[in-house]
């Protein structure tokens, strides 16, 4: 089972923990429904669609309402530090997390450290993925290398590369995101230990990298409109989370996810006004195609 922690942009949405399902254009958890627009609901919806293809169970969500005041995030952090510590001793069979993805949460270094500390106490360390606000906190805390995968966009990569910046808002101009300097930004992020073990950089070209540099570049199909759309990075993080849960190696999962997300975008034929659910609907078709191609490629390599 894998877990996703994030927030819902509704002030009175309760703190909930449980399996998450997709019902039409909404996600549902503990009888609470929320529309999929962008953010963590988009990540979860994409992960669920990926699970359908992989024949996997539903993701486990840790969710709370937060419109930026940080109150919901802090309630969730507190809850998770207690809940994660108890997981191994629970009698409930089947609840252990192979992967945990942290997403739209108020960046708070103290709470980040407490959650990470609770995870370290788990009998088996899960694979840790961070995106959005929690990734900012992970970098600020100086604990980035404890994570297995960060999924920044190019602006966030520049923030990771800037050892001084406490938030992307303060990324210095000479570092600021330029896609043709991506090698340099990745190297700088690793030099200052501000990157996870692997990086999946979302952009005009998606790049999969580690400390040794870029290992794969995915640049087709191109749908320029996706850059303007809210939620397309969230869907990519959702797909890669579910693929890693299936046992796929992180770098390979990142490459497959990037290809599938781009292809799903291509199938949706988006304009800058398209909403992300249009892309999420295309994920199964896109992912099946990419997985079949990967399978054929592996067979061909084996034969030759």
């Amino acid at each position, binding site marked *: 089972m894998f877990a996703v922690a994030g*927030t*819902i*942009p509704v002030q009175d949405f309760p703190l909930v923990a449980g399996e998450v399902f997709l019902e039409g254009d909404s996600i549902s958890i503990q009888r609470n429904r929320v529309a999929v*627009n*962008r*953010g*963590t609901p988009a990540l979860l919806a994409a992960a669920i669609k990926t699970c359908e293809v992989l024949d996997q169970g539903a993701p486990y969500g840790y969710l709370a309402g*937060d*419109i*930026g*005041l*940080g109150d*919901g*995030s802090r309630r969730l952090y507190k809850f998770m530090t207690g809940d994660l510590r108890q997981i191994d001793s629970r009698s409930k069979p089947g609840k252990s997390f192979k992967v945990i993805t942290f997403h*739209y*949460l*108020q*960046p*708070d*270094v103290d709470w980040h450290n407490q959650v990470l500390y609770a995870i370290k106490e788990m009998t088996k360390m899960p694979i840790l993925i961070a*995106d*959005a*606000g*929690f*990734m*900012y*906190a992970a970098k*600020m*805390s*100086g604990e980035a290398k404890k994570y297995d995968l960060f999924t920044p*966009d190019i*602006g*966030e990569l520049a*923030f990771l590369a800037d*050892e*001084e*910046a*406490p*938030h*992307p*808002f*303060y*990324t*210095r*101009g000479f570092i*600021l995101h330029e896609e043709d300097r991506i090698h340099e930004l990745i190297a700088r992020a690793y030099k200052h230990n501000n990157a996870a073990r692997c990086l999946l950089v979302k952009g005009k070209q998606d790049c999969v990298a580690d400390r040794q540099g870029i290992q794969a570049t995915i640049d087709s199909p191109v749908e*320029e*409109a996706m*850059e*303007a*759309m*809210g*939620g*397309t*990075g969230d869907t990519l993080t959702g797909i890669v989370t579910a693929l890693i849960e299936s046992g796929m190696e992180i770098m390979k999962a990142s490459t497959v996810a990037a290809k599938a997300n781009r292809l799903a975008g291509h199938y949706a034929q988006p*304009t*800058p*006004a398209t*909403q992300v659910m249009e892309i999420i609907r295309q994920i199964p078709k896109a992912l099946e195609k990419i997985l079949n191609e990967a399978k054929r490629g592996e067979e061909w390599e084996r034969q030759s």
Partner: protein
Amino acid sequence: MSFIGILKKKRSKNVDNKNIDRAILVFENTSEVIRAENVLKSQGWKIKVMGPPPEIRSGCDLVIEIPLIEDLNILRSLEEAGASPLEIVPVSSPLLQPVDLFQNKDFGKYLMIRAANMKLTIDKETQNIVNVSGGGCPDVPYLAQEMVGKTIFDAPEPRKIGHTLCGYALQLAYEEMTRRCSL
């Protein structure tokens, strides 16, 4: 000084991870510090009044330390109380400047403006906001929900309903888009 201008600064120095998620509010004089402290404490903010770091000593011998991420929310409270600071700077690196570069992308029918990690896209003909993307703080999905579907002139300003630095970045993109739409 303008709301955004409060964040401007000049140089740069070495980083320290300690207190990296905190910022400092700098005021004209001590009585303003005390007034701001009262406003923020009465609203339940976790703040600390302290001496300024050497880089930003400029007359007043006290500053207020606040959570950096939530500065948009805090600045709005102070502005409403008539207690705005002269500037706000990150504790870890007091001389860092906020991003002031904009990147524009013309999609023909649509125009996208990016400020820092935030992107705002409108339909050029109707001036309707069609998408908001980027960012990582929890007010981003909320801001998108409140702004998408409205014209750039009818939509609520991010500075009025946002709470975080991502909201601040979106405000910059919004101001740049408003400027362009007004030409």
